[in-house]
């Protein structure tokens, strides 16, 4: 089976969330993370985009979304793009 590169968009719970600390916990909790970038929205809110590689198999996309949603400070996490590597 192949691997899938996915890009997720993560929104913080509030503008007060420490984005630096959030990035750190993403890297530790989701070690498959290859890249993280800040995408400023507005009103003090900053979204994070992250690139992750997962196997092309059952449950793979859900597992990553779920893991990210459980992190402290995360309001929402969803896959916005994907492709086989």
């Amino acid at each position: 089976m192949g691997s899938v590169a996915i890009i997720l968009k993560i929104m913080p719970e509030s503008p007060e969330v420490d984005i630096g600390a959030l990035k750190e916990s993403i890297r530790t909790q989701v070690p498959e993370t290859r890249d993280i970038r800040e995408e400023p929205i507005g009103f003090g809110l900053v979204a994070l985009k992250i690139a992750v590689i997962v196997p092309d198999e059952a449950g793979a996309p859900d597992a990553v979304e779920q893991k990210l949603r459980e992190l402290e400070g995360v309001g929402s996490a969803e896959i916005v793009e994907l492709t086989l590597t």
Partner: protein
Amino acid sequence: MATEKPHLNLAVIGHIDHGKSTTVGRLLFETGSVPPHIIENYRKEAESKGKGSFEFAWVMDNLKEERERGITIDIAHKRFDTDKYYFTIVDCPGHRDFVKNMITGASQADAALLVVAAPDGVMEQTKEHVFLARTLGINQLIIGINKMDAAKYDEKRYNEVKDQLSQLIKMVGYKPDDVHFIPMSAFKGTNISKHSEETHWYKGVTLLEALDTLKEPEKPTNLPLRLPIQDVYSISGIGTVPVGRVETGVMKKGMKVSFMPANKEGEVKSIEMHHEEQPEALPGDNVGFNVRGIGKGDVRRGDVCGPADAPPTVADEFTAQIVILHHPSALTVGYTPVFHCHTAQIACTFIELQKKLDPRSGQVKEENPTFLKTGDAAIVKIRPTRPMVIEKVKEIPQLGRFAIRDMGSTIAAGMCIDITPKQMR
């Protein structure tokens, strides 16, 4: 400059093992998009081994390895240039659990390249992917009849597969006369960038030529505003700030907007993106906006923002065309799985199974079937268990498609073809 060419997103679809990845690799190779050092290493390797036929597989393996090591947000997608366009490739995963993400995701494919192996013809996943392409709103299609080398470059076999495929695509609404069917071999490089002697009977375009016949998509700015809400914030000193991506239409400062199914109205006070105030937001923009007259508890994820004079449609019931991707047994009236449509996730009940469709003939196979199973395509009637915004795919395609999930796996994908609206006022 390459970057000044218009950009298209190309989805590559097809049955597993029909040569999707080889086709993608071949496109990159023939357009000079494989990094030079990989080609150089290949030359050395080929010289030392003295063989040419393993060439392609070798390039592909190395490319894959290198990509997985160095993937970033910018280069998650493979890219190549034709004379006219600059393409990024969405190489569709084989597992159906990714279908939901393709339907609710951000990057809409502008065209699909369907790869079908000539020796096999139409297979289960070919059928599934054609339905998905249509459901995803991909209106431009190119078909590569691949592995012609394994079918002795036989014109008769090409025509048989072409006929099968014409029936299949006609059923979901593509016009076979508008679609290029290219006999090719991605492995050998046949009819990719150059016409090949082996298929002297074929007078049509090569794959690269076919890609240049595609049309550039228009931004859906002429449709009414639809902005599905992703998150809602209450920000001190400012007020309620919903966040989301504009799917269609234009949001302007000062506009009177309506949120459905919340049934709340307000006025857009300001719009921000990239931490800067914007006079308007266009399709594809990820924005936060402050609305006068709306409290944080009034709207939530899954609501849709639209103009007050053309508010999003709330469905009491709707009719849909669906394809069952995977169901462990049989699906019957009364089944109530979760529908994922834009940012909404709502349990909906199948209240009528109207027609089962036959993908090979394009005809109705059965009126009022008693059940549906994996692989079936059907017209069904659905009733959401709570108010839900959905639009007819013919009117606002971006809000007319959905994925159906149950027990953590993707069951089906579909599009809304008719709606019995709920009166909200």
